[in-house]
């Protein structure tokens, strides 16, 4: 006799508040399991963790300092002493690529983080309040979005540079903190500001759309009819259900921010040498593409890999959080 001719139903128990909670089934656990089953996504996740590790600890463990020059060993191809060779000033390419990871990571995560903050705040207000407030906020996003992104970012970063420079000088005089002296930080802040400016409307619209959809769902109406307080509705219903697309957008945003940063650095308006960014390394390497292609190839390879990794992770997250079970 077959053991279970009835389908296994999920055991349902009542927790302390008398609300049924399912022990076996949990959206996040389920999604996590699905994500882990996706090999591409797992590999990507591993790569990203490696990236984070390198960003945090890399510069301390690389064999060479990324700034130190060795003019006797210029443009060397990869060897045992220099795993990725040396560049035109004798600097070790590998160490610079690792430092580039730090640059890329700081920028990507900060940009996405701040954009999310702004976007979620404004988007939630718009989504929940509706009416004129919503219209106004949406109008602002339309205005910002109707300017081509790269254009806006380029204009912003270039035009804000001089005043930013002056401000930094003043701050240094006031506080004597070294940070304000370094051009590196000016570059970073400028670039991040420009990128945030361009990125936040996308997130705002996303959140707003999610909130509006969820607000009208039957289960929210039912909760309100039962007298569940608004705070609880927000925390228990609206936010958990809107996180899905947001998580996917974050992953995509990270990859895209990295790519944009390197594009800017390539153009010379992002992170400028000698601080390594994969973008400006590619720019410098371009001049030597015939004789020393390794200068170009390694940062490009790493950049490409990380972009792909974020893309696959994003896809994996999307599949994990939005299962289309019957589509197999």
């Amino acid at each position, binding site marked *: *006799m077959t053991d279970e*001719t*009835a*389908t296994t*139903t999920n055991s349902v128990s009542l927790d302390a508040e008398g609300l049924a909670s399912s022990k076996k089934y949990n959206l996040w656990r389920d999604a996590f399991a699905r994500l882990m089953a996706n090999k591409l996504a797992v590999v990507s996740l591993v790569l990203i963790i490696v990236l984070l590790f390198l960003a945090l600890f890399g510069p301390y463990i690389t064999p060479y300092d990324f700034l130190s020059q060795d003019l006797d060993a210029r443009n060397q191809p990869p060897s045992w002493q220099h795993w990725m060779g040396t560049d035109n000033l004798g600097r070790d390419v590998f160490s610079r690529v690792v430092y580039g990871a730090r640059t890329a990571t700081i920028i990507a995560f900060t940009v996405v983080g701040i954009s999310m903050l702004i976007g979620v705040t404004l988007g939630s207000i718009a989504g929940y309040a509706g009416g004129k407030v919503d219209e106004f906020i949406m109008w602002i996003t339309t205005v910002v979005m109707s300017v081509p992104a790269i254009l806006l970012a380029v204009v912003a970063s270039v035009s804000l540079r001089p005043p930013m420079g002056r401000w930094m000088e003043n701050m240094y005089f006031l506080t004597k903190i070294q940070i304000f002296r370094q051009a590196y930080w000016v570059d970073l802040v400028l670039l991040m500001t420009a990128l945030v400016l361009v990125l936040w409307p996308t997130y705002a619209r996303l959140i707003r759309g999610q909130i509006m959809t969820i607000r009208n769902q039957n289960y929210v109406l039912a909760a309100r009819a039962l007298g569940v307080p608004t705070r609880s509705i927000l925390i228990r219903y609206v936010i958990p259900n809107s996180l899905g697309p947001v998580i996917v957008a974050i992953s995509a945003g990270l990859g895209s921010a990295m790519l944009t940063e390197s594009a800017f650095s390539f153009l010379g308006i992002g992170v400028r040498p000698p601080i390594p960014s994969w973008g400006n390394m590619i720019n410098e390497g371009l001049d030597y593409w015939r004789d020393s292609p390794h200068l170009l190839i390694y940062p490009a390879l790493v950049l490409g890999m990380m972009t792909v990794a974020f893309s696959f992770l994003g896809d994996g997250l999307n599949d994990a959080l939005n299962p289309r079970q019957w589509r*197999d």
Partner: protein
Amino acid sequence: MTPLLNVKNLQTRFKSRQGYIYAVNDVSFHVLEGETLGVVGESGCGKSVTMLSLLKLLPPAARIEGGQAIFNGKNLLEMKTKQIRQVRGAQIGMIFQDPMSSLNPVVKIGVQMSEPLRAHLKMSKSQAWERSAQLLDMVGIPEAEARLHDYPHQLSGGMRQRVMIAMSLACKPKILIADEPTTALDVTIQAQIVDLVRDLRDELNTTIIWITHDLSLIAGFVDRVMVMYAGYIVEEAPVDDLYDDPRHPYTVGLFGALPEIGSTGQRRLTTIKGAPPNLESTPTCCPFVPRCGYATDKCHTTNPVLQPAPDAADPNHRLACWVDIRERRQA
């Protein structure tokens, strides 16, 4: 009398992530010309899959593992795609449950209706268009000519189903398979659709296989009824016989769940306890055992075979059950 359609030992299964789903198990039945066969069973019992198998309309994950389906002297299951295309629509028509999703939303009604006419009857565009208008008229759609230029979303549910019916009967097929055509409609519209099909059947002498999960719907409409469960046929009888003398515990349960007109409302509607079966393995016992109130030891060890029911009023009353429930039933 040779049956118009004779299905023997049909076996269909689906490939799933964990293994297989045995959707249709050893199903054999026949349909005579001009008769109306009702197929009853709950969701997932295999009634749709059986019919889809005949026309090779299954999704890619499905595989017909065995059996034959003789229609017009040929085995449908062995036909190549090109051959079966000539059967579809022209010899055997099919209508589906949800008329909204079953019609292409971006193509005009007239075009969709013309397609089978042009493919099978080789009509020209204008001929097909004209005939389509006549067909829409036949199914009771007002302003038929104008409707041809509409898109599916512009019509109501009942009207869309009428369009589906008209479309499927366009080439006057010998058999019409109706897969729960009224399930997605309002009750009043349901009755209209059933009446419409009945009239068309009488006029065109079409053989009909009508799938439903609603017993009350088919009472005055079909000639014979086939009850399915877990991919097996569990009972089969002429309609009056089935209603008067249901023999399978499942059938009894289905009837018990129906409210009766004229009852005082004191009787509780009986429910069949338990949950639908897990189809991921072929049971070595009767698939209905967990929910059956009459199960014996034999039921737990051997799968019943479809045989003529003992002492049935009609010799065509078949039953797959080891138990004679007449003794065990309360009055």
